[in-house]
């Protein structure tokens, strides 16, 4: 049964307490017919392999290259994103927020870990950490510095605390020097952090000749 294949890095060591505790709970739930182990496997497979920040990167790259799509994304992010096949759990009510030279957007959930799963996958540990949740609304500039991101002093910061069922996707500004790139190449520049607001898109590796870096 696949659900028995928990990771055992050391086969000669006893399983750790959490592994045991979860295994016991799952066994009891399976025995009572509450869950189907194969359904658990299917859920895990979805988020481990199918859904992740590549989805969001495709959305952002398309917004950079398709003004009509960008406009749709701004007006009705849920529908625009669903049109690309990214919809469902924890993305039922999407909102895209666009960075500008004057304002940088940052997303947090101070109360739990709300995060747009269909476009970004499951949140990283730091996003769920008390450090991030407590500080993002109070001292985002200090937080961004810990990600190596120093915004110009004149750039305002807008923090979106996801306190309801709206889920936020940050659309960063398209980097300079990407004029000749297509959506596929652009998507490779869009990191998860850029779509949360704790980072910026990567600078393209090869700057076209004649364009100052």
């Amino acid at each position, binding site marked *: 049964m696949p659900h028995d294949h928990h990771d055992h890095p050391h086969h000669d060591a006893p399983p750790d307490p959490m592994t045991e505790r*979860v295994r016991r709970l799952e066994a009891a739930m399976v025995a009572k017919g509450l869950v189907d182990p194969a359904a658990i496997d299917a859920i895990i497979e979805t988020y481990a392999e199918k859904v992740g920040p590549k989805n969001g990167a495709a959305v952002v790259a398309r917004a950079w290259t398709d003004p009509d799509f960008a406009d749709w994304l701004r007006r009705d992010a849920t529908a625009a994103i669903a049109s690309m096949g990214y*919809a469902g759990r924890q993305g039922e009510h999407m909102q895209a927020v666009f960075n500008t030279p004057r304002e940088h957007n940052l997303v947090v959930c101070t109360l739990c870990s709300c995060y747009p799963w269909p476009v970004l996958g499951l949140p990283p540990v*730091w996003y769920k950490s008390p450090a991030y949740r407590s500080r993002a609304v109070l001292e985002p500039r200090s937080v961004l510095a810990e990600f190596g991101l120093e915004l110009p002093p004149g750039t305002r*910061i807008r923090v979106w605390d996801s306190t309801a069922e*709206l889920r936020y996707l940050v659309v960063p500004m398209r980097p300079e020097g990407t004029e000749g790139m297509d959506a596929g190449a652009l998507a490779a520049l869009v990191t998860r952090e850029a779509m949360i607001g704790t980072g910026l898109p990567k600078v393209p590796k090869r700057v076209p000749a004649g364009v100052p870096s």
Partner: protein
Amino acid sequence: MNGPQDLGGAMGFGPVRPEADEPVFHAGWEARVLGLTLAAGALGHWNIDASRHARESLPPAVYHASSYYEIWLRALEALIERQGLLRPDAPVPHPRRLSAAAVPAAIAAGTDYARPVAAPPRFRRGDRVRARNIHPRGHTRLPRYVRGHVGRIEAEHGGFILPDAHAHGRGEAPERLYTVVFDGAELWGPDAEPGLSVSVDAWESYLEPV
């Protein structure tokens, strides 16, 4: 509730530590907890608001000492216990057990939390509003750090299920939802970083006109 989950503005948790090339799960049991939580939710005995309330109702010492999926696990255990799903007299199998075949559709469908609200909106874009100074003992999604503070309505999103009712079996009680923006200095006074604004999404009953 003013529980351990309400972290906005709290101090002492140290730096944020991004992890390079972070895996989706850090242990097999984390993946199982995610799967168990979603599959158990499909049984229909509780909703997302009740789940969140189960997590924030953990004793603060436990909440703060637990990793994220450990919090999920403890809340799942508590919900199962409260609903008696493992009692000897519970029917086997559960009539709403999620099958593997149904997983893709369930994930793709999600849950629509929007609900029609007949009454006109009490607030309009641009209105100044105060987040009410409430301290309910039960679930709420109005964080403590905005309560009593004045912001501006930026958007009205139509009706949504009210978590304060929904978490406690008091129905959906839908209300209009607003995005309310607060100036950093309004929230944090002289200790605010310059150029900061913070928004929350707030149900109509969380707000009062200024």
